[in-house]
């Protein structure tokens, strides 16, 4: 079984560029990088913080205890930091675009590339379980793109991004947009080395999504509320959604947009063009 996404070994992750016949199939390399560094143990060991497993048998000997205190996400986190260092050295601004399926991530990206593709040097990494569809949409706009197909995997991880970026050969001073697998749960745990995490929700979803999926909203920097042209027809309360989102993350910055009509997109573009300020 794959150590990265938990998928079975017969479902390899693939990396493909549109219009290239060569399909670069490979399985995750099972590299083993787990530096056993000591890091401070932040939480205090007061009993009120712990609810012990009832099966825990106190006093029963299980041999010699060796303190590990190692984050289970160490491998991904250290690879993400390596990506981050690479991006910083090349002055690349990286966005990790996350949302549930169907909120309009790819459409948002398409419109952004059409409208300000001349002003910024965009590169795109697309993540989906299957198909080249999204990469083909981006390639049609003459923007360099690579598609990661995760097979059974429910999220992108730092290793996949590392491999994809090497193949994409991103130029210095570029803006790299990574469109994650449509999923509001799993991608929240996996740092990719991005500069900013952008979560997209649409008004056809429930306005309580931020508190139903708080981990994702807590980890994001930007929240884009899409499809606002549909507000007259749905029960979505924008203020309520924003307040819910702010209650899990009071640093969130919002953009209310309609990718379809273009309403609100100028503010998003202005933020993107001001890229130096966000690094």
């Amino acid at each position, binding site marked *: *079984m*794959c*150590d*990265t*996404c*938990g998928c079975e070994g017969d479902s390899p992750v693939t990396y493909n560029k549109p219009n290239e016949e060569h399909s670069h199939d490979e399985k995750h390399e099972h590299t*083993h990088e*787990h530096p*056993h560094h000591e890091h401070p143990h*932040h*939480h*205090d060991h007061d009993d*009120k*913080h*712990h*609810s*012990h*497993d009832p*099966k*825990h048998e106190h006093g029963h000997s*299980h*041999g*010699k*205890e*060796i*303190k*590990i*205190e*190692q*984050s*289970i*996400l*160490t*491998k991904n986190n250290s690879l993400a930091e390596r990506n981050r260092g690479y991006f910083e050295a090349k002055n690349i601004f990286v966005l990790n675009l996350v949302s549930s399926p169907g909120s309009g991530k790819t459409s948002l990206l398409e419109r952004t590339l059409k409208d300000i593709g001349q002003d910024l040097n965009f590169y795109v990494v697309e993540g989906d379980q299957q198909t080249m569809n999204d990469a083909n949409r981006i390639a049609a706009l003459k923007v360099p793109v690579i598609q990661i197909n995760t097979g059974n995997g*429910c*999220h992108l991880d730092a290793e996949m991004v590392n491999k994809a970026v090497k193949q994409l050969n991103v130029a210095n001073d570029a803006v790299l947009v990574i469109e994650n697998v449509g999923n509001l*749960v*799993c991608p*929240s*745990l*996996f740092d990719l080395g991005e500069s900013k995490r952008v979560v997209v929700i649409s008004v056809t979803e429930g306005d309580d999504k931020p*508190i139903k999926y*708080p*981990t994702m909203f*807590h980890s994001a920097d930007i929240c884009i509320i899409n499809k606002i042209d549909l507000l007259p027809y749905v029960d979505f309360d924008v203020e309520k959604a924003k307040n*819910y989102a*702010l*209650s*899990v*993350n*009071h640093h969130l910055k919002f953009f209310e947009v309609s990718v379809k009509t273009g309403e609100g997109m100028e503010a998003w573009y202005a933020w993107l063009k001001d890229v130096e300020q966000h690094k």
Partner: protein
Amino acid sequence: MHELSIATSIIEIAEEFAVKNKGANITKIEIEVGELSGIVVDSLEFALELAIEKTVLERAKIIITTIKGMARCKQCGNEYVNSDWHTACPQCASMDFDITGGKELQIKSIFIE
């Protein structure tokens, strides 16, 4: 189902530990999972049960301890349980807080014979 990838990461860390400790027999492993870590303990237990087969953890006792989500109010300094990211301070009703605990996702100890 990212709990499965977390389970496989746990096994990987344990396998490496066993190699480094010259094939020591792992009898118990203690894992800490914070309420705000994004991991469902039941799913992790289920994933581990499947994944540990034929690994160094096959015979190990697995103890998963849940750590309460904690927040410190930035208005009045009160420290309180915040299990869902968005609980107001029970003392002053402020929503202005820092999360101080509950994001843990780590292997605490490994016991060997």
